[in-house]
């Protein structure tokens, strides 16, 4: 019912079926897709044509009686067995070679570690900088080492035609080489719970020379930015905002709005007042003190945050006055 299967892969523009290709592997994948598409269209049209012809030509309403024909024909049956067999073999071969290209990174890749967690991607660059988006240089092969903190996620960049599951307790990897500067979507492609569809990140492909500059700036944000601003950035990149709002709404965790100086009660009945030491404990050993009315689900950040970063976050929280 109504298809326009013409594939128009023009450089920089998407086609009817595919987003604009932006990696070295993408055009090859698209070629495989197109081949299968044309084969499929051919056979589909063949089936439609034969069917329509038979329905019209041999319609009983026209007084047509059935004729006795052969009930089997070895030559015909062999033909429509062998030809599809050859075609699927070709499709398999094209799919396989295209895949081996996707699966085999070249030597000298730029490596970034990727961790998926509910519901955020975190990228750790070779210099130790952690970011919530993936920045890569143009025309450089990049290799991602993927894992998960909790359940299975999947790292999917449609523009690059790459996808690989991020599995807890194991490392997987994928590689790509970006060919177009710009920003591209990263989706999570393995269902992982409530905010599976919000687990979106961006790949930012920097023109030559600009990537190094970005990395340096980003890595030094603690030095360059005021502590409170740096803290704000950390609150986003480290996933705090997934569970703690800053607008007063209670979420999986208590809201950060007005948190500094807040008084309350823990689950075990003890009273608390939020100050620097409390916040530090809450970040490094969250299970030891649970606010009444909330569940003990916060992961610990011990070993994952520097002292300077914790200080920045505390400064930021102080600015969230009601």
């Amino acid at each position, binding site marked *: 019912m109504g298809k326009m299967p013409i594939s128009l892969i023009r450089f920089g523009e998407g086609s009817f079926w595919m987003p604009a290709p932006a990696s070295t592997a993408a055009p090859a994948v698209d070629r495989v897709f197109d081949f299968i598409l044309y084969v499929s269209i051919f056979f589909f049209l063949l*089936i439609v044509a034969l069917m329509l012809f038979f329905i019209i030509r041999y319609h009983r309403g026209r007084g047509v009686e059935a004729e006795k024909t052969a009930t089997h024909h070895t030559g015909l049956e062999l033909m429509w067995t062998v030809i599809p067999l050859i075609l699927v073999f070709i499709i398999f071969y094209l799919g396989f070679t295209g895949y081996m290209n996707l699966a085999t990174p070249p030597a000298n890749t730029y490596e970034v570690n990727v961790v998926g967690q509910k519901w955020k991607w975190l990228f750790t660059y070779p210099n130790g900088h952690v970011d919530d988006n993936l920045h890569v240089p143009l025309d450089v092969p990049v290799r991602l080492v993927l894992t998960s903190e909790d359940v299975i996620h999947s790292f999917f960049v*449609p523009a690059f035609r790459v996808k690989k599951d991020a599995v807890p307790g194991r490392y997987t990897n994928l590689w790509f080489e970006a060919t177009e500067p710009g920003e591209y979507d990263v989706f999570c492609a393995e269902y992982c719970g409530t905010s599976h569809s919000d687990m979106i990140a961006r790949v930012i492909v920097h023109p030559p020379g600009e990537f190094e500059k970005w990395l340096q700036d980003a890595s030094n944000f603690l030095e360059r930015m005021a502590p409170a601003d740096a803290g704000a950035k950390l609150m986003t990149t480290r996933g705090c905002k997934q569970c703690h709002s800053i607008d007063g709404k209670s979420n999986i965790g208590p809201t950060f709005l007005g948190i500094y100086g807040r008084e309350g009660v823990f689950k075990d009945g003890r009273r608390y007042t939020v100050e620097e030491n409390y916040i530090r404990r809450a970040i490094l050993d969250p299970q030891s003190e649970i606010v009444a009315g909330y569940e003990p689900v916060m992961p610990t950040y011990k070993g994952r945050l520097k002292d300077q970063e914790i200080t920045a976050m505390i400064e930021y929280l102080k600015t969230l006055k009601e």
Partner: protein
Amino acid sequence: MNGSTAVADNYLSHGRGFRSWFFTLDHKRIGVMYLASIFFFLILGGFFAMLIRTELLTPGRTIMDADTYNQVFTLHGAVMIFLFIIPGIPAAFGNFVLPVMLGAKDVAFPRLNLLSYHLYVVGAIFSVVSILLGAVDTGWTFYTPYSTTTHTSVVSMTLGAFILGFSSIFTGINFIVTIHRMRPPGMSWNRLPLFLWALYSTAIIQVLATPVLGITLLLLIVERLLGIGIFDPALGGDPVLYQHFFWFYSHPAVYIMILPAMGVMSELISVFSRKHIFGYKAIAYSSVAIAVLSFLVWGHHMFTSGQSDLGNMIFSALTFSVAIPSAIKVFNWLATMYKGSIRLDTPMLYALSFLLLFGIGGLTGLFLGALATDVHLHDTYFVVAHFHYTMMGGVLIAFLGAMHYWWPKMFGRMYSEKAGRLAAFLVFVGFNLTFFSQFVMGSQGMPRRYYNYLDRFQPYHVLSTIGAYVLAVAFVVLAGNLIHSLFRGRKAPANPWGSATLEWMCASPPPHDNFAEPPEAGDPYDLEHLVYDESIGGYVPRTAREGA
């Protein structure tokens, strides 16, 4: 003389009251109970589908929050797969038709058959209860470790599926033994109707694959309840092992779904073209080939899971091998229509829809079997469209075709052809509207199981939802037509469509014991000896007509 029997002594009137139905040993009554239950769950699953499509009209929240949406799509999948499509054609029509097609009085193990139905009911109750206890939100695939850690009612739903698995296994055992041991004299394997070849191949898969699902779900349940640690990475377990176990069953399961549908196709195309089926042996053996090959390809659901490149390559190659027997069938059906005398009655409209829709479904499988393209398309709406074209455009369409084909035999009533054709047309249109745009959405990168989505995908979603509402209307017309026929339909002759398989040789509806004396089994596709008799609105043997 009117072809219908007196109202007394048919299987519907033989004994009244709840107990005579719920504890019956009559395969026909069991088939009817299955049909009613299965159709009910089709509607329930369809209701969940309408909720999904309505929510997806807009990105962000439309009518429900994210957690509810996740539960709704899980239930849609689980209900449709475990309660509708897997029991589907074998339970609702196989049970009724199989013994009669063999000229037999019942299946080999009538009590086991009743047990199958009771297990279905119990499994259904567990599944429905799970909805009320905090519905599952894992997706119908229950991937670990999400399913071992989520706080929803995974145990009761998987327990329900476990019990339903045994219902399926026992039906499979029954069908295999019945076909092996209870064929009439004259019905060699080469004279077996193709619907029975299909049921036989299906039963082989049911019997061999379902126990593996059983142990998988059992392990999942004890993992949740006792923390055994087989699939939990925090305890040294392997979540990918779960995927291997799960798909080892669930891939053959899709052939449990499609093989009976293909069997129905062989019957419908032949009868409504008034022609002997073309390539009988090829169709029969291709069913068995599909059954065997189906066990070798499960890894194609796991190409991006971290499975080795070698594993990926082997599974991809084997996946393409399974395509060939299906292609053979399609060409054989087309060749059957050649120089036939084709009547576009409602069952035939469904058969033709199947050819087109399953054709698209099968061809889009090529994209997914090829490694390079699957990496991009896996877990996107392309896959969703593919399996809806095969399972819905294929199996459901064949189910509806079977229902309209055997309805006169089962209930002794003819329905309105006009309404039947209208519904078939609306189903075809609504279905394509709903699902074709999903192919494009998927290849453009829209992942599946997404509550929220980027704005640029909205036009596809809107088109899809419109199609869903057309489908809903189609089902109202369809169900209304059939139910109306039960009360006001013209009485059906023994053989309204002119088929040569044995179930059409007894009255519509059949008597309690099917046949007083088993009829002679000839070539089930020799249609020449049947002629249409205007006075009864059905077909009779040529000699009877000439003698009258």
